[in-house]
């Protein structure tokens, strides 16, 4: 599923609404839509690590892109180990793509936002394992839409990488933003192979859709 054209203030009404990997992402999408800030869900994937033969072995798909602000937003609402992992990925992204503007929204930021909006009742639902809700999708779509937020543990990390690699391979992210150069095609083909192998892992995390 290509999320690129989804979510522009149509999240609630659009039957093609992205399948968010986590309740917190769905809530942030609702907040953005409420304030008429256009958003796209995981539209781009940025390769951030390559093997010696040029294959993508690590990539990063920020949760949201806000086209009017030219800003990516990544939500972290899970445990500290994943926050550290995301921080590391973020540093790498900034090194490799200095022109890309990205904001990491920590659990604390999001919690304060919900407190401000009086959504206290959602706090327990939106953090930790109870906030996880990876909706059922076709295997390929699951790989594309999944993110580390909806998973836990080492398997989740593997699945997240698979998802990101799959996104790189299938979604064809904005060619002007990421992964340029002559090696791009080779990386893509390699990524597609990797994704094909790892897709089953990603799909295995599918669960009920968010309420």
């Amino acid at each position, binding site marked *: 599923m290509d999320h690129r054209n989804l979510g522009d203030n149509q999240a*609630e009404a659009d039957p093609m609404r992205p399948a968010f990997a986590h309740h917190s992402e769905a809530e942030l999408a609702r907040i953005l839509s*409420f*304030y008429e800030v256009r958003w796209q869900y995981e539209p781009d994937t940025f390769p951030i690590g390559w093997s010696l033969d040029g294959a993508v072995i690590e990539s990063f798909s920020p949760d949201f892109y806000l086209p009017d*602000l030219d800003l990516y*937003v990544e939500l972290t609402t899970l445990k500290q180990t994943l926050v550290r992992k995301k921080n590391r990925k973020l540093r790498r992204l900034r090194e490799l793509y200095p022109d890309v503007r990205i904001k990491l929204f920590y659990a604390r930021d999001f919690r*304060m936002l919900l407190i401000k909006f009086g959504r*206290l009742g959602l706090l327990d639902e939106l953090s930790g394992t109870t906030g996880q809700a990876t909706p059922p999708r076709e295997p390929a779509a699951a790989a594309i839409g999944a993110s580390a937020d909806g998973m836990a543990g080492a398997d989740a990390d593997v699945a997240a990488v698979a998802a990101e690699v799959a996104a790189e391979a299938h979604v064809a992210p904005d060619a002007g933003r990421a992964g340029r150069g002559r090696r791009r095609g080779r990386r893509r083909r390699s990524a597609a192979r990797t994704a094909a192998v790892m897709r089953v892992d990603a799909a295995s995390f599918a669960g009920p859709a968010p309420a």
Partner: protein
Amino acid sequence: MSRPVDLANDIGEVLLTEEQIAARVAELGRKISADYAGKNLTLVSVLKGSLPFMADLMRQIALPLRIDLMEVSSYGGTATESSGLVRIIKDLSASISGEDVLLVEDIIDTGLTLNYLVRYLRGKNPASLKICTLLDKPARRLVEIPVDYQGFEIPDQFVVGYGLDYSERYRNLRFVGVLRPEVYSSLG
């Protein structure tokens, strides 16, 4: 509400005293007076949080000016959830076309409300549009909007008082304080 509001004890720390606020508001008033000399200044305040700031600031500006008030719905408000979009609850009472508008805010954190308001007000063709905020919490900024007049930059803490509320309470405090976290979990 499961717990009574205790104005004296619900505040963990006084971040800005009444005197600090007054001094800074006076400074802002002097600067705005100098910058807007000879212009058609209109102060637009956003209800409800910026009401005390607006009241104090306008009296520190030594210029002829107009004031107007707006109120917009906030995300999560039960009255607005059906629409799913921000709504103007109270619009400007007069045209601002050709006016030099200064939008007076109590606090800017994510910038989402401000971003909406700026776009809305620009559509009304003011001669200029600038932003004045008492409190700026840049750590939480999602939408970057240049702030022309800033009272205080504050840390990423939940503050109340001097117009700022939690669950519609604490607005009448004469200072800005940090609400004790345990209050969040006990007020509905």
